[in-house]
């Protein structure tokens, strides 16, 4: 188990390096200059100055300078060479406050001048994490409930209805679900606020909208797992021992049926936490998801790379957590 964790953790930086290289290359070849106000062009000298300042005039220079500041290498190097101390001394001796330098510096946002990418992510990631976690919780409750209900009486009306609803949940785009929910529950019924964030009431609707595709998938996984499990010998044994239906279903069958759901939870959680930009837009949730879209449109290199790296890290870490849980829940797996 430890070797598995260790191996994954060692692989992490290499995966991130590949992700970084691909992302930056793709972002770089998109035409346009991130520094230009789309309607009014600054003087060419101005653009040239800014290109210089951010290394936007040379791909290799940008690639390596960003790599070293984002990974903390630059910080470490400056700390060892005494550069950090020197900067501090000089600034203080000239009456400037001591310079502040983050260890992992993801750079400035080219579009949102007043924020660093570190700040952008730290302000918006908690929101996305909350939304994603709530959505997965709701998805688990709805999905497993529906899956078990369907599996208990396969091919019954309940089963067909839940399957059909699940199918709709998977295939309907989230902006449709989101808009319908918003219209019915916020505008017509007035039960939930529009375009607010922070209270459980304001989280409920976007979380529900985000959870539905996951719930549908979980329902199908649970149903399949349950049907398999309910036909197994140990269930017959459990029934023969006189266990009530509830105990058989939950303690015996669901435990096994849950395993595929568990392995789905890793990538699903990462996806729900970072890939919710459509829901975030429809419900005006101040999360990180929208940076994915707007940063690419703005060609805001630092933001693009920052959010992609955070997403990649989350994906890897959640998969790791799930694998660890998996082995813990089911010690048979090696």
């Amino acid at each position, binding site marked *: 188990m430890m070797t598995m964790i260790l191996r994954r953790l060692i692989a992490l930086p290499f995966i991130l390096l590949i992700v970084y290289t691909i992302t930056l290359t793709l972002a770089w070849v998109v*035409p*346009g200059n991130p520094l*230009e106000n*789309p*309607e*009014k*062009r*600054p003087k060419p*000298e*101005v653009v040239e*100055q*800014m290109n210089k*300042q951010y290394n936007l005039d040379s791909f290799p220079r940008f690639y390596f300078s960003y790599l070293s500041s984002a990974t903390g290498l630059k910080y470490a190097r400056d700390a060892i060479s005494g*550069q950090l101390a*020197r*900067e501090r001394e000089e*600034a203080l001796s*000239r009456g*400037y*406050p001591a*310079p502040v330098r983050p260890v992992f510096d993801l750079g400035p946002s080219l*579009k*949102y*001048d*007043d*924020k660093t990418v570190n*700040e*952008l992510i730290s*302000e*918006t990631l908690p*929101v996305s*994490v*909350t939304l994603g*976690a*709530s959505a*997965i*919780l709701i998805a*688990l409750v709805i999905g497993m409930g529906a899956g078990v209900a369907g599996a208990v009486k396969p091919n019954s009306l309940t089963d067909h209805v839940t399957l059909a609803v699940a199918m709709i949940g998977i295939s309907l785009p989230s902006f449709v679900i989101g*808009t319908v929910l*918003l219209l019915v529950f916020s*505008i017509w019924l007035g039960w939930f*606020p*529009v*375009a*607010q*964030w922070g*209270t*459980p009431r304001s*989280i409920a609707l976007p979380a529900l909208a985000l959870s539905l595709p996951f719930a549908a998938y979980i329902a199908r996984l649970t149903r399949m797992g349950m049907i398999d499990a309910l036909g197994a010998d140990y269930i017959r044994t459990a029934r023969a021992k006189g266990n009530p239906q509830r105990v058989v279903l*939950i303690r015996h069958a*669901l*435990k096994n049926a849950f395993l595929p759901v*568990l392995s789905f*939870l890793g990538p699903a959680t990462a996806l729900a936490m970072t890939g919710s930009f459509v829901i975030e837009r*429809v419900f*005006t949730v*101040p*999360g990180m998801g929208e940076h994915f879209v707007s940063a690419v449109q703005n060609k805001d290199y630092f933001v693009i790379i920052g959010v992609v790296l955070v997403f990649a890290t989350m994906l890897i870490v959640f998969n790791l957590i799930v694998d660890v*849980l998996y082995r813990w*829940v089911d010690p048979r797996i090696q």
Partner: protein
Amino acid sequence: MYRLLLPVILLLALVGVSVLSDKPSPRADLVFINSSDVNTLDPQRMSWMHDMRTARLLFEGLVRNDVLSDDFAIIPGVAESWSVSGDGRTYTFRLREDARWSNGEPVTAEDFRYSWRRAMLPDLVADYVNMFMLIEGAQDFYDWRTEQLDAFSQRSFESPAQRQRSAYDLWDETVAKFDQLVGLSAPDPRTLVVQLSRPVPYFLDLCAFVVFAPVYEPLVAQYERPDPTTARLIRRPGWTAGGVLISNGPFELTRWRMKRDMRLEKNPFYWDTGAIAIDSVDIPSINDPNAGVLAYQTGAVDWIADVTAPYRGEMVAQKQEYLAQHADEVARLKAQGLDQFSIDRQLPPDPRAHTHAVSSFGTYFYNFNCKPYLPDGQPNPFADARVRRAFAMCVDKRAIADQVRRLGEPTASTLIPPGSIGGYESPQGLPNVGDASSETERARIVAKARTLLQEAGFPEDFVVTLSFNKDSGHDLIAQTIAKSWQKHLGVGTRLDQKEIKIFRQELKDKQYMTGRAGWYGDYGDPTTFLDINYSTDGNNDRAYNNPRYDGLIDQAATELDPAKRMALLGEAERILVEQDVPLIPIFHYATIYMFDPQKITGLSTHPRTTQNAYLIDILTDAKGPNQPRPMRRPAPSSQEPAP
């Protein structure tokens, strides 16, 4: 079994913690949706309209525009009075004694010198650096600093420590150089003397522009220092954060959460705090156009500063229907000289009355590439002004405004929206098929256009390409233009739809034949529009080059007599829109607002589309005078602002 619950418990704990740690604050007096997230609150670096709309709440320049007056008069801000020398090149401002920063410190003339110096530095790359170059010595200072920075990067140093020391030394030298070169002086803390390199009749208007507002040196200087390796002044973001920013306007920033909201509270030290009728402002970040309208309908928002929902055409149509139902009353109120918001306020309440189309300081137009050869190497028929004139006359502007845009926007025959700049007489412009009063007139215009094409030898079966980006309904406008050209001129057309970045790049590189464009003015002078057609201007996407046009602009730059100067600029625009026509003005933009006229007052209908939101009074609350604030006609004798 309970092991299975662990992931669920983990998730539950996560949600619980984040919900509990996040308490929403009570609703502000005024909640409005800005058109986009604020990019920066650093006045010297801003260039976006939504940034400026917010900044005008937080910062105050030497003077302000009275947005509620019909002539957009200059009124005192931080300066209580000012005088101009006879040659129009020296401005002396007297700062008011009670002008204060939000921490209670006085606003001084040095604050302006510091802030304007920031804008003149090549290091900070301000978009509006050009405006500051009107100040005596600013260009020399900018060039000197640029040279020094270039030289610094070429120099070799014995050690990093020495390099760093030199970077700081160069900065000290730069500060000294600024004092020596630039015509900005502060004989005492309350007097600011500005020397201009040439007379600039609209200089006060620039001073009202928020880019000229001061920043608080003791705060900002902490975030800016010379980079030890490049000597360039580097800025660390952070001083514009909520609770950190120190500003001198009617409000202070207490919270700014990215993509979420901004909260402003009344600045207790503001000199004219008695005139402010709201205590707090919330600016939620709602970027989805539809969500904004929904939020308005639930009452969570008081004012949407730019409705971009796809159905806004219908909203405007419903408003017009509502006005038509009360046509007699509207006519009567109009005759009294009331502005459109005051008229809405007098009519019976109706949800349809909450939509307002306000004319804007901007124009939608089509560019012609005026280069002699097209990107493919073929001779460019549009290099001939006669061809451009013919095509311009045959665009059905009326159909675009009334059937495609449907926002009640006026068709344009000039680049500058008529009536937006006091003392400026707009030229007539070319006749247009869409605005022809009768069929015979239309036929006459078409015949004229066809003759022009014949004279110019416009090639047979030439295919005209229209370039545009794929968003915001530009495709429908391009189709309408193509249809009118096919119909009236019998030419073939090709629509070239591009992704926006590529489209802009092609405009910039002149890799197009005709293409859509738009421009919003920045300040109250015709040059804010006309400069983009100057042969060497960076925004001259048309590659337009007429020495006579450039000459008129140059001549106006040194003309002291305001009336003569306006006449010169009027002649330049006449050449532009009647003779050379490097662009086809199509319509002047309208901005769509949403607010309840019975509830909100203090918004301006002036075509400069500048709102000072601190003038807003919520008529239904207990704060402020709760009296409607209509647009005022200029006083007969207020030609010059009282010193």
